[in-house]
């Protein structure tokens, strides 16, 4: 059974957001079938929160204070010690931790590193406010983490763009909305044929403070009465803030709660009771001072309104727009807006239904059931089940040999996570240089050798491997032009893996190697990492990933853009790439310089493209960047696979390729066009006919079927022990 340790660095005697998080995390783990040990930070002086934890199936509360009701809370160092001891007693598969101070300490633990699932909210939320020290600290945390769990997509993007090691490890872990312990009531309509038939019920729950606009809210029923709407505002809560700059504010607030017409003040209430009252209202109040608009955190109150079927009136903030959508009808910015919204609601009851539907859809991912699904997905990926091919076998020792594992990282992670395998790396310093002693030790140790890239590493291992040792190589593209393949002792190689049927066939032709050993396992696409909401209307934004060297043909991308902009000036091109002068081996070539100068000359001189191209830099944060892209271009002269279109498809963009050799053995011919004119024609026709979203959805389904990471990983586990069929090198990968 999977075993987890949980430590939230939070005092569970106090009910607050982080304590609720510990509770919901334990529940999600427990409901996912994980055995949980949750370590307390402070002695238990009331069991309001600890008791429900103890009642959860499979959850053990570890009290380092042995039941004492007083004592000093654990320091981060002490907590790390306790976790290490607990892990030594029974190894945990995952260690879920929260809070920057503690997580920093945990990341330094050699014992815990690699198994940490870290959740951070207490970090600078503006990249300009992050200094080098903070970034270095987060970088260390990311390296020690199996997952960095982010509360929102925005926080994930911030981390990925600032902390390179967070790329590929950052996953969403949204707040969980509490489930009501009562049935939701049926509400009668507030109006019939535009005539109000009962009072409109508004509800506010929470603290009373200036930034929460609670004083202004108390005037709303009177303002509504002035326009002929009978309304009551139910206000729940008993914490009235003292305002140092305005000492009389709390008195005015209290008087307003007690005396304002239409306001019914209920005082403080237990949470479930407050939720029950809320569920009887027509509208929730979450209208706040604009100063509150800049948070990257989601308000659980808003989510709670949604879960209770009560659409809230709330500010149009980026987070709310992302949550509910641009067209949600109850965004407000002033008391007058609230009055107008209520008038609309009376005149058009369907508006209420629409708002309810918008909110229900918005909060669906935040329910406990959705969180359990998400947790199961994370567990499956971090702790994959043994593939059938490895079942019942002795533990297999796998050596991976490469000078560059960039294309192998996820497969490596997967193999390392399988308990049936032990994985070691022979990391070559460069393509042709290695520590021969280390390589000989690898030959002695491993049952299976994987050479990532068919470079001199393959030559060496094909000549030094043991007879009973399995040798697998993955060949990409450039190796075919290198001279060293003649030196490979091919009879020592069990399987030659290519990433596309075209290159498998080309490999057979060029090398004369036995065709029955050449098979295809496609490149992987981490679809879940790319599955993120787009930023606004992206159908006019083309994207290119990697434009150097010139054979990537950025000039053709520019030509496509130019043709599109002659029809519609909204088209733009975003480029995620280093530039040619950033690669010394490219920039030293006169022809590359000349092409680059030509490219920029056109960029500046051609009015159809001038100002319409952005160079967005280079980095691992491609999934975050693809959120702003609607089309991914692949205009290269040649490629072995070109992941960019596939990653674009996974992100919800539409691919558009030129017919580089072999493209049709990887991608559906639907996405491959004869020339830039045809690409531009197809893009514009799709956008102008309003079919972009549908086409993007179809592309996404296709990439899911063609190159899913789990299937690719399974194939890699299988090939360790059995030969795959050479039939894989025929036809096309597109499903």
């Amino acid at each position, binding site marked *: 059974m999977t075993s987890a340790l949980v430590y939230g660095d939070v005092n569970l005697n106090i009910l607050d957001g982080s304590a609720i998080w510990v509770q919901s995390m334990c529940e999600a783990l427990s409901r996912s079938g994980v055995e949980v040990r949750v370590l307390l930070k402070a002695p238990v002086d009331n069991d309001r929160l600890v008791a429900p934890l103890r009642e959860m199936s499979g959850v053990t509360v570890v009290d380092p204070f042995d039941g004492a009701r007083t004592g000093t809370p654990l320091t981060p160092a002490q907590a790390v010690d306790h976790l290490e001891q607990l892990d030594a007693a029974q190894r945990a598969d995952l260690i879920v931790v929260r809070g920057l101070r503690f997580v920093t300490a945990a990341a330094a633990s050699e014992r815990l590193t690699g198994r940490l699932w870290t959740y951070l909210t207490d970090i600078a*939320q*503006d*990249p*300009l406010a992050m200094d080098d020290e903070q970034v270095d600290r987060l970088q260390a945390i990311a390296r020690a983490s199996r997952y960095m769990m982010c509360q929102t997509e925005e926080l994930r*993007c*911030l981390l990925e*763009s*600032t902390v390179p090691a967070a790329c*590929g490890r950052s996953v969403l872990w949204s707040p969980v909305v509490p489930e009501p312990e009562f049935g939701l009531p049926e509400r009668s309509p507030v109006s019939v044929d535009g005539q109000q038939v009962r009072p409109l019920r508004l509800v506010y729950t929470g603290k009373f403070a200036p930034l929460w606009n609670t004083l202004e809210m108390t005037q709303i029923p009177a303002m509504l009465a002035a326009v002929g709407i009978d309304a009551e505002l139910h206000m729940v809560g008993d914490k009235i803030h003292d305002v140092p700059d305005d000492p009389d504010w709390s008195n005015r607030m209290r008087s307003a709660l007690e005396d304002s017409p239409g306001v019914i003040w209920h005082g403080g209430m237990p949470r479930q009771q407050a939720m029950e009252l809320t569920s009887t209202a027509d509208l929730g109040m979450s209208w706040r001072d*604009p100063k509150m*608009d*800049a948070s*990257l955190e989601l308000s659980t109150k808003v989510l709670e309104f949604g879960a209770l079927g009560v659409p809230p009136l709330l500010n149009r903030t*980026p987070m709310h727009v992302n949550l509910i959508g*641009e067209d949600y009808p109850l*965004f407000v*910015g*002033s008391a007058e807006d609230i009055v*107008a*919204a209520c*008038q*609309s609601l009376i005149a058009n009851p369907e508006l209420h239904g629409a708002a309810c539907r918008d909110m229900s859809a918005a909060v669906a991912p935040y329910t406990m059931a959705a969180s359990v699904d998400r947790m199961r997905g994370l567990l499956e990926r971090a702790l994959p089940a043994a593939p059938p091919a490895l079942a019942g076998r002795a533990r297999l020792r796998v050596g991976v040999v490469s000078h*560059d594992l960039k*294309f192998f990282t996820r497969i490596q992670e997967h193999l390392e996570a399988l308990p049936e395998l032990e994985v070691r790396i022979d990391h070559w*310093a460069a393509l042709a*240089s290695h520590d021969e002693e280390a390589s000989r030790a690898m030959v002695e140790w491993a049952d299976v050798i994987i050479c990532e*890239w068919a470079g001199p590493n393959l030559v060496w291992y094909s000549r030094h491997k043991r007879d009973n040792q399995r040798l697998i190589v993955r060949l*990409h593209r*450039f190796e075919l032009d290198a001279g060293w393949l003649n030196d490979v002792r091919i009879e020592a190689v069990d399987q030659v893996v290519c990433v596309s049927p075209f290159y498998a066939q080309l490999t057979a032709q060029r090398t004369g190697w036995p065709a029955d050993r050449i098979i295809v396992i496609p490149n992987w696409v*981490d679809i879940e990492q790319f599955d993120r909401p787009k*930023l*606004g*209307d992206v159908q006019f934004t083309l994207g290119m*990933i*990697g434009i*150097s060297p010139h054979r990537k043909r950025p000039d053709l991308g520019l030509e496509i853009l130019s043709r599109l902009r002659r029809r*519609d*000036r*909204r088209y733009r091109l975003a480029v*995620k790439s*280093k*530039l*040619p*002068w950033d*690669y010394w*081996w*490219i*920039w*030293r070539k006169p022809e590359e310089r000349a092409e680059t100068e030509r490219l*920029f000359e056109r960029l*500046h001189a051609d009015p159809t493209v*001038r*100002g319409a191209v*952005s160079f*967005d830099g280079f980095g691992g944060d*491609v999934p*975050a960047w693809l959120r702003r892209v609607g089309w991914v271009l692949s205009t290269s002269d040649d490629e072995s696979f*070109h992941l*960019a279109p596939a*990653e674009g498809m996974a992100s919800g963009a539409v691919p558009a390729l030129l017919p580089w050799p072999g493209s049709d053995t990887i991608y559906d011919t639907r996405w491959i066009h004869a020339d830039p004119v045809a690409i531009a024609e197809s893009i514009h026709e799709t956008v102008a006919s309003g079919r972009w979203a549908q086409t993007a959805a179809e592309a996404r389904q296709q990439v899911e079927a063609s190159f899913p990471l789990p299937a690719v990983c399974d194939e890699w586990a299988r090939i360790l022990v059995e030969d795959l069929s050479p039939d894989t090198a025929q036809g096309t990968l597109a499903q």
Partner: protein
Amino acid sequence: MTEGPADELQAPPEPGPTNQVARLQHDLRRAEARADRAERALERAQRSASFVVGNLLVNAAKSPRRLLTLPRDLWRIWRLRRSRRTAPTTTPSTRGRRDDVLDLDAPRLLIPRTSVAAAAQGSLAIAGALSHRTALAWAPYAAVSNALPHEGPALIEAVDADIVVIDTASALPGESWEHLGDPAAVDRLRAAAALVDAAHAQGRPVVLLRSTPPSRTVFLSELAERCDLVVDGPGSVRDNPWHPGIDPAAWQFGEVPHSASIFVPRESRAGTPLERELRAAIEADRSGRDECSPDPRLQRSVALREAISKASFGLADPMWTPDHLLGATSTSLGLLASGRRVLAGHDADLRTLLAGQDAARGAVVFTEGTSNVPDALEQAARPMSDGQRRAVLRALMVGASAPVQLTTLAELLDVESRPRAVWDVALIAGADPDVDQILLQSWRPRELVVRTPLSDRSMNLLHEEGIVVTPLPDDVLRDRTLLNMAVTTPYIARQVDLDDPDAILDLLIEQIAGLPTLPRQHDSVLWSTR
């Protein structure tokens, strides 16, 4: 994820034995660390007052224009020192490997040579992240260089700008800084911060112009901290109002059509409930009037002008501006400048702008609710009278025109430049001019040309108000060519009826907006000296 790695493999493998490679790699790592440290030290040095002052002195030695502005530049550096002192570096600490950067000059290819606007002596040079609309409004009155996100610092270094502006409207969909302010687009924010750093290294002030709704600028608070001045334009909050102004000349489309077609902006699709209510009421009541909306396929400001040129009146954008936000958007002002009435729900700033001109008041028809929409539509569809149009233009010229507003901005930043000088007028005074009347003009002359010396009191008064007095002999006054050469302003007015406080302004409006000359009792005339 996908980028580059395959290409990196094309780098030839290092020759020689393994230990040599290891030693070279070791040396390389050390060199990288040294370069990294040196670069951080350089960044710190470039932000230091000594470096910035030194830079200014060097620039002054190279350029007469900068020599003239040097004292003020130094004063401004001192005055604005706080923002520079508090700003940490924007260079991401996640530096990439530098071993492959060979040609440090190559990134200059990014800079569009043709779009770097050169400033004439005395004119204002502005560079930065500008929306197309803002750049277009300012271009006739300042040397405007619009930077793209990837070229910001390089452009700032290449352009000798007086002011660097980050206009949040440049982050709107379709604009070149799209996504700036979205927390998911960290690279854009960093690019904007790099622009600020580059400007500060040159000793130039940076203005953040918030010209979009607060929801689009809430995540720019840290960037705002680094800017020398934050101003709020239409759409933003009422913290530090400053209108970027419009170019009245750009909104003249000739005769207003009688087709009763209505201009409907498309931009505030996601408005407030009040906005939607009003839009729905207007849609229900517009009774067969054709709708002219900007063609989304065209560049935004081009489309806007084209649509307005076809309409006989238009809806404000947005229809309802709550009082905590700033109104009088350039769309509404453009409609008014073009001689079209505007139908608005509520907009306190539009009301205020026109309040000083009685005749202009009906140019904006306010509904203040949905009940009187049919009447309001009728009123808005009536053609503006000539007098009303002139009154509107008076209000716009004085209160919301680009050269006037840019002059205010330059004053706020202690930048020695007067963009409104393009509309400066020399007034040829009659005998014994009434100086008080001259000072009461809504558009005061910059220069007063006199035949005979004025009294000391008059001279002092005029001097205090910044009006230059130029005595000229009769023969020069009679010869327009000589007169044009003798004055320093681009316009000369004579025979002006100073009893009318708007006399000079009206003459100027006729020139700028191309309106027909009104028959006047005095043979008032204003002409360009250029």
